[in-house]
């Protein structure tokens, strides 16, 4: 079984090397990405095109962050800072 896997990997390796040799330019900027699960190249199931994509998750996180920052600011400024003892009055 192991030998079959090793052989397949060898063929894949040769295939990719030859494919690179044949392509006429530099780094392939193909789409969708090959996504093979190796370092920096996670597996991908489906293509999501620019027309289909609405970053609603990002907007959700952004609004949560906004809320946290504003509340923390009000607490820090009017709670901590204003009540932190004598201040410079000039």
């Amino acid at each position, binding site marked *: 079984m192991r030998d079959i896997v090793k052989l397949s990997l060898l063929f894949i390796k040769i295939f990719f090397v030859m494919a690179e040799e044949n392509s006429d330019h530099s780094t392939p900027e193909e789409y969708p*990405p090959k996504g093979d699960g190796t370092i920096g190249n996670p597996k991908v199931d489906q293509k999501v095109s620019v027309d289909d994509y609405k970053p609603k998750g990002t907007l959700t996180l952004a609004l949560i962050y906004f809320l946290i920052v504003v509340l923390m600011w009000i607490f820090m*400024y009017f709670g901590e800072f204003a009540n932190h003892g004598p201040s410079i009055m000039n």
Partner: protein
Amino acid sequence: MTFLKKYPRAAKVAKANFIVAFIALTIGGTFGLIQALHRTDIFRGIINSGQYYTILTGHGVLLALIFTTFFIMGLFVWGVTRSLEREPENLTYTWTWFWLMVVGLVLAAFTILAGLVPGSSIRAAVLYTFYPPLQAHPLFYIGLALVIVASWMAGADWFRSYLKWRKEHPTERIPLLTYMTLFTMLMWYICSFGVAFEVVVMLIPWSLGWVTNIDPLLPRTLFWYFGHALVYFWLLPAYYVWYAILPKFSGGRLFSDSMARVVFIIFLILSTPVGFHHQYADPGISVGFKFYAMAATLLLLLPSLITFFTVIASMEHGARQRGGKGYLAWLGKLPWDNPPFVGCALAGIMFAAGGFSGIINASMNINIMIHNTLWVPGHFHLTVGTAVALTFMAVSYWLIPQLTGRKLKHKTLALIQPYAWFLGMTLMSNAMHRGGLAGIPRRTAEPTYSGFKFHAVFGSIGEIKWQIAIGATILTISLFMFIWVITATWWKGEESEQPVDESIPEPLSGAEYTPAVLDNIKLWLALAIILVILAYSFPLWDMIKDGLFSPGVPPRPA
């Protein structure tokens, strides 16, 4: 074909820079552990408190100046070469700037480390801000000057490559990786002019004894003219990774090429004029100029908030392509088992927290509450210490293989490493923030005083100290995990024709939607220079008009 095979000469230059960076990281990081154990009084057996300040100088210089600069040089060499598809134009020139930088580094590091030898007259315990009249050995300042000049040469190297490329591609958009490099370097030229003037015109003659007295406010002001843009010199390469490469690490595509360019333009324009926000507590600078700096600094929130959206939208795209659904559930479908992604994502999360403490620092009067307290290192360990450093470590897992032709070794260790860093930093940094609110000072070997006690608002001082020590220990372990993985990979990693997938997909909204004016380098550079003149000309004139070196005071050896 891997980068190493395609661009062997550039690969060698990049690798040389990374080696220096990683050595500096190891030594500087170890110093950090010594400091954390010493100042919390958990273990004071390694150094004495007088030596603490030498170790602290080493920590700051090796990490904040050497590790960062050399890593950035390596990263930019890789990016410019790859995106312009050209090896460096003149190898002799390229290696010259590298070796000049190394000579500078060795000189500065030598003077710092010599201070650890008892009875040594060569010392540089001036911390990485080196404010006079505390005075270091002349070779310290000469070394730093060489590093800065070499960095200018490096920038010129990339501009030259760009101009040569431009001749052959008259109408094409500047490739994003090169664009971000050029704008970072332009910002660097503007800001480093200030510290170069300080070091070359003032500090070197003064340390050599050609001038005796020095006016402390002017060099300090020149340093902070440089010092804020310096942090963006660190941050922008992290943004560079997040914009250009993190989408790929997430399984997606960059949400918007044009927003990335807009963000870099804003940083070019606004990074330097904000320097006075590091001097809110200084006498000698009027409230008016401090206010102008504050307004500009808070405006600098904008490019980071834009980055928040664009980068997360790119990651979300990857999650959706991996089957992610819903408003928040998609987060689980991100590749949390892939080391480069994990490091960059955790770095980004930590940056969001660091951004908040930065808003406090930027806001003129509330800044006074935390000025020079432990809050400040709490803040910058989140930003340069994690957002930048952890991103650099994460992208190394993907870059070193393509520069060496070897597959990454010890992948499990590489995966644990960023999680450990995040945990260690959470512990250490939250404790530093709370310690700062209690008034505990930074840059101090023994923050225990007689006659009064510090009072923590949340928790206790004792528990704050333990969190700092434990956090620092976990961080050091994580650091050694990183060095282990990289060393093993470089030395013994399995050789491969394709050790990683080097392709980067096209952005969702690409260069064709990007207005040409964003590529108009001269316009943005002019605007940047004007804003710097507006912010600094009056205050600097005020300090210089009674003499460059006066009112002066004599030097105090460090």
